[in-house]
């Protein structure tokens, strides 16, 4: 609305009051946290009133005086309306759903209006997020979802939010900075599905020397079209032997171990992305899977929670445990 003026004044105000930006999961907008400045329409309005006043003085026209003063007073009273539209709002952090890198992370901010007056056209802005507009009925709560681009895996903080409004006349903008201390997990961007030539056999339990008693390897048989690529004996292929398919006792219900060390020698981020893709695919195929990263081991299982544990482990890989 008033980008130009905001561009001048806001950073200054922000710098001055940066240390005062309230932080917490539940915040109430108190008087001293709300700032207000005229928008550029407010400035044009003021200039118009000045010209009107000069005209009224020149023509000594009582109604012109009256209209000028009435409009000026309305402009001033609108500051109170605008301010009141923000005052005493309660903000709470809501859901911060995990997302994949490259997609948008969605933070839900809960705005509660404790007053018998409805609030209108509240604008919520976060850095790099599309501003959201919302109304809140009297004594009601509105959930506002902010979408922020999540370029990298790891933790994404929502950071400071600006809650602002120009309601009702657009002549004044009142705003407040809040930090709801929200963060979400950003999973690695799912990598490409491995080319047949490079995919390791995650069912081979013995090669890593770990406890993989559940994998009952029976032997090989000749490859038939339609066999799952996961069951192809890739090492044989590497040794120029004819294509073989591994046979297991538990056959298709066999657990998967998605193992960092089984992946071809690519950089860490690519490995994480490949593992991410495998987790997603395994979950989608309803096949129990476990995850093994350096220093992390998650026993095979299925389900949304399990998927989240695995993906979170991938997201936070390499970060100091907090």
């Amino acid at each position: 609305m008033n980008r130009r003026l905001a561009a001048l004044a806001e950073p200054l105000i922000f710098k001055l009051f940066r240390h005062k930006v309230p932080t917490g999961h539940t915040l109430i907008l108190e008087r001293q946290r709300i700032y207000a400045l005229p928008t550029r329409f407010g400035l044009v309005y003021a200039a118009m009133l000045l010209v009107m006043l000069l005209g009224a003085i020149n023509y000594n026209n009582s109604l012109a005086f009256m209209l000028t003063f009435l409009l000026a007073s309305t402009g001033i009273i609108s500051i109170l309306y605008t301010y009141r539209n923000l005052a005493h709002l309660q903000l709470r952090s809501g859901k911060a759903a995990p997302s994949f890198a490259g997609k948008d992370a969605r933070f839900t901010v809960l705005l509660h209006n404790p007053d018998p007056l409805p609030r209108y056209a509240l604008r919520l802005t976060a850095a790099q997020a599309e501003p959201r507009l919302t109304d809140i009925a009297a004594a009601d709560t509105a959930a506002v979802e902010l979408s922020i681009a999540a370029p990298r895996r790891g933790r994404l903080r929502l950071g400071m939010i600006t809650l602002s409004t120009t309601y009702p006349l657009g002549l004044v903008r009142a705003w407040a900075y809040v930090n709801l201390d929200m963060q979400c997990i950003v999973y690695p961007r799912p990598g490409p599905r491995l080319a047949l030539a490079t995919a390791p056999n995650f069912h081979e339990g013995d090669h890593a020397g770990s406890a993989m008693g559940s994998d009952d390897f029976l032997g090989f048989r000749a490859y038939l079209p339609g066999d799952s690529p996961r069951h192809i004996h890739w090492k044989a292929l590497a040794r120029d032997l004819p294509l073989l398919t591994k046979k297991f006792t538990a056959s298709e219900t066999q657990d998967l171990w998605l193992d960092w060390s089984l992946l071809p020698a690519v950089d860490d981020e690519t490995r994480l992305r490949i593992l991410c893709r495998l987790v997603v695919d395994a979950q989608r195929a309803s096949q129990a899977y476990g995850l093994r990263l350096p220093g992390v081991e998650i026993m095979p299982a299925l389900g949304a929670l399990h998927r989240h544990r695995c993906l979170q482990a991938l997201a936070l890989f390499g970060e100091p445990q907090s």
Partner: protein
Amino acid sequence: MNRASTATAFRPEVLIRMLAVLGLVVAPQLPRLPPWLVVVSLAFAAWCYFITRRSLKLPSLWLRILLSTLLLMAVYAHYGTLLGHDVGAALLIAMLALKLMEIRDARDIYITVFLGYFLIIVGFLFSQSLWMAAYMLVVVTLLTSVLIDLNRTRLTAIGSNLRLAASMLLRALPLALAVFVLFPRISGPLWGMPKDAYDGMIGLGKEMAPGLISDLIQSDAVAFRAGFDGPIPPPRQRYWRGPILWQTDGMAWRTGHSWNPVSRSGPPPLVTSGDAVTYTVTLEPHNRRWLYALDLVAAAPPEARIAPDFLLLRAAPLRERLRYAVTSYPDGVASRLSVTERQRALQLPVRGNPRARALAQEWRRRFHDPATIVQQALLMFRNQPFIYTLHPPAIAGDFVDRFLFKTRKGFCEHYAASFTFLMRAAGIPARVVTGYQGGELNPIGNYLIVRQRDAHAWSEVWLDGHGWTRVDPTAAVAPERIDLSIDNRLQDIGDAVRFELPHAAWLAALWRETHFAWDALNNKWNQWVLSYGVARQADLLGWLSLGGLSWQNAAILLLAAVGAVLVGMVIFMLKRERQAEDAIVRAYQAFCRKLARRGLSRRSYEGPVDFAQRVAAQRPDLAGQVHGIIKLYTALRYGANQTPAALDMLRRAVRHFRP
């Protein structure tokens, strides 16, 4: 920053509302605008509407520049100038219409709405009537609601935005009034006024020619109002003196040289008889230097002086409503005639009107005595078939001759001019006096309303031994003119004038009552709102014992008042949510008090629900009511139902609770 990135879209409905409101803004100006401009503006509005509705492309910049240039040139061609009120208003409307051609986003709507506000103030230069003020207040509310529309998240019903706009304006009113009263007024314009600034003002001029006064008579506009301290003089004494016309070319009469510096001497002594009348006149601006007063004025208000022919003159043309107190002697006579005045009062054109001259010479031969000659002339008007009409036939050539001997249909100006001509031709010093005659009594407020339709012209003749004597030849033709007002609604061309006869019908009486009440209201409006200027402000501050403030102190006073009103507004508006909370508690306390009076006091440790159960156990008859109230109270207090409607219900329930 480029525009696209800051652009805020608006909903097409908002545009439609704005166009409708702009139509209302412009409506009062329509009669003054050239018709082609109205058509062009309407076309542009329709174009703007279709562009938005159909998401069409805006006209290109070049087309807009071309249209702007064409429109500017057309306005210039129409008015022949670019300076003045009418042109200013037309240009502003043209600008508004052109602005409609480039409405792209919310920003343009803001600018257009601001132009609308500006146009309203321009409208006030043309009319400041009560109607106009009320109408424009509604339009301002509507314009403001368009701004609210722009700031809504979604399209809302017009009603709710209008209510908000109205309540905002209502809350702004105390502040606006404080500033209106205290903002220092200065006299005189800051810069030059356009030439046509005072064109709208009507009234008598310095010249009387056939047709000028009868044109004025068509107008119901108020010339002035006069409030009397004592009894109001009867109609026969209500001659309001205006410009005195000395010089004639046989047809038109002019003031002549009476205002040159030589005649700056005071008036001749006034021979007074009868009672003095003291009254206060509120004169509408007429852009002339003279003020009106009853014949003959004895004491001038401080802002004017009395000229030798007893006209009240001020230094500058009157361009704002003026209120002044005067004292007059209705029976007073000016009793001195200087040599130059006698010469001027006998001036006639060298030739023309031979028959009138011959008639006057004959009278002079036969009667000698001026008073008898005057009588003779009046008898002629009375006895011969002269008709008093607003629409006399046009006269070419010898005006007096044709009128006296041929057409015999005329208006007061015809009679006064011919009579004075005859007197001069008969050697009697005479002059024409223009002014107003009569006035309508407004019983509400007890004052006389004198309208333009009361404009009149009469004669004064010099009678040795008596002085200047008023003779009204019109009274000889149509005596009713003096007692009754002209009913100018029903005049047909060539017909004799009809007078407003007193109606017996109750409807007419009611109509007159309403009319008087309305005029009394207008009078107050004029006096207290429209003529609130330097003088009124000084009066008011003096009354508040704050008179004679320096401008610094006046500024401090203004700021203090603004500050006080603002603090009041802040408290009023921002404590409201608190109030709502308090209201719940207050209602509950009232409920507890009512029970305490019946011996059922709430114990300090008792919560509302426990208390209700105890009350219900002791007074089963109250159980239903008590549980209802407590349910409402807990819902309001602890969150289940915190709406204003619920609070209302709680309050009502407690009010009707009679244990």
